[in-house]
């Protein structure tokens, strides 16, 4: 489904990503690990079209993502759900509105928004908090809202960028389990993290990175740096 073909990204003189080659199959669960600055975020930004590669191509289903017309990018992004370390929730909107928001921009009808949003909040176990505001939630709950928002458009790919970075171990573990559950339901998941316990507990494919280079790619990997 996803293919990185010798992708290099320079920020000035810094090589954030250096000749990355890998592919991800549909329904796969891939953990992207490595220390800060290893290039994980760059890979994610290339996938969401926030950044463009200096060299190489990123293709999804054989199409070069970065050749998409600018006007088409919003529609492309609706096929990818993204979850961030800092949740990126709108503080002046309720939990329900935050999730519904993603559907609103697509022009869905009010009924569809209501049923889909309720379904997603149910999936992440936050139905009872629909009327709460983000500042009333714990970190784990906030991240679940973000996951619900990312999934409400039924994306084929869910990208989680350090989703557990701001969470305590218990919440982090819960979020990881939720991601695994989502993957089992048929969504491709890319999890970028440097949380060793999480990666080891999931026991799926691990791509390890360092200084912009991929240093290992194992089918049932563990978190390792050397």
């Amino acid at each position, binding site marked *: 489904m996803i293919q990185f073909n010798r992708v290099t990204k320079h920020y000035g003189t810094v090589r954030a990503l250096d000749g990355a080659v890998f592919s991800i199959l549909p329904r796969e669960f891939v953990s992207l690990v490595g220390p800060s600055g290893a290039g994980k975020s760059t890979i994610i930004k290339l996938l969401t079209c926030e950044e463009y590669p200096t060299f190489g191509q990123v293709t999804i289903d054989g199409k070069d993502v970065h050749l998409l017309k600018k006007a088409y990018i919003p529609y492309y*992004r609706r096929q990818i759900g993204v979850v961030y370390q800092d949740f990126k929730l709108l503080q002046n909107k309720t939990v329900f509105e935050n999730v519904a928001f993603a559907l609103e921009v697509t*022009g869905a009808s009010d009924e569809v928004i209501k049923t889909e949003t309720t379904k997603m909040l149910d999936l992440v176990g936050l139905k009872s908090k629909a009327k709460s505001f983000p500042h009333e939630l714990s970190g784990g709950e906030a991240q679940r809202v973000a996951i619900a928002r990312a999934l409400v458009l039924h994306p084929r790919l869910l990208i989680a960028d350090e989703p557990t970075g701001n969470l305590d171990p218990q919440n982090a573990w819960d979020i990881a389990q939720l991601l695994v559950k989502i993957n089992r339901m048929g969504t491709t998941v890319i999890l970028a993290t440097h949380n060793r316990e999480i990666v080891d507990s999931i026991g799926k494919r691990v791509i390890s990175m360092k200084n912009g280079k991929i240093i290992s790619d194992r089918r049932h990997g563990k978190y390792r740096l050397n």
Partner: protein
Amino acid sequence: MQLFLRIIKTSWQGFWRNGWLSLVAIFIMVQVLLLVGIFLSLNVGVGQAIRAINNQIDLAVFFKEYVPAADITNFQARIENIENVKSVEFISQEQALARYIANSQHNRDLIEAIDSDASFFPASLEVKVTHPDSLEQVIQQIKSQDTNNIVATTSWEKNQAVVDKLRKINKLLALGNVVISLILLIVALLIIFNTIRITIFTRKEEIEIMKLVGATDWYIRWPFVLEGVLYGFLGALLAFGLTILMYQGVVWFLGSSYWSWQSVSKTIGDFGLMFALRLLGFQIFFGILVGSLSSYLATRRYLRI
């Protein structure tokens, strides 16, 4: 349709939730539009003055000294036949003196200076025209009838000096108006642009998240642009109201009117309904243009994700 309603709703929310900034934006809009309005009204005011001076004073044709009475009678008959002339009245030197004495009752010195000598006053014809606008044309015809060269001067020529000055002022005002309007337009654009940019900056995060969720640029931008339109529209209405009130205030200050709703409608009447509408239209157009353009430009940099 769903999208459209949602955009309207979002812009309305944005307008209320940023209450203070909205107020500032509208206030600045009012200021600029008001200045433009004042300049345009000044133009009209001077135009009105010119018309008033030409209209209020009936035309007087003064004769030279020692013109035979027959010539004057003959001349009067010819003038009466000119188109647009309502009436012609002959004022002899004696009548002019009598009038002068009557008008100067409060000042004996003035009467004594004349010493009842009617030869100080020229004989004249007082001409009333049917339509004020035809005055200039009537003057031309009267002069062309003056074959014996008996006319010394006319009241029109005396007034003309004042009218010419007013016309010059009006021209200057019109030119100044264009220049000042242009400068104001640029200043307004900059200030409003900055104000709107601040309101948008406070919602930078919201825009960023919308983009990442897959909102199209126009879905994000429309509410801001509509907000700008709203600033412009409300600003224009307020500015128009204030322009009328200020004109009213000047009229009141000059003592020719008193405050009431009737006098407000009279002010609009003075302006001419067409001018009032045009001023309102211009202010609304200008306000909306500046407001929406600023919003459009200000959102641009945050949409580059």
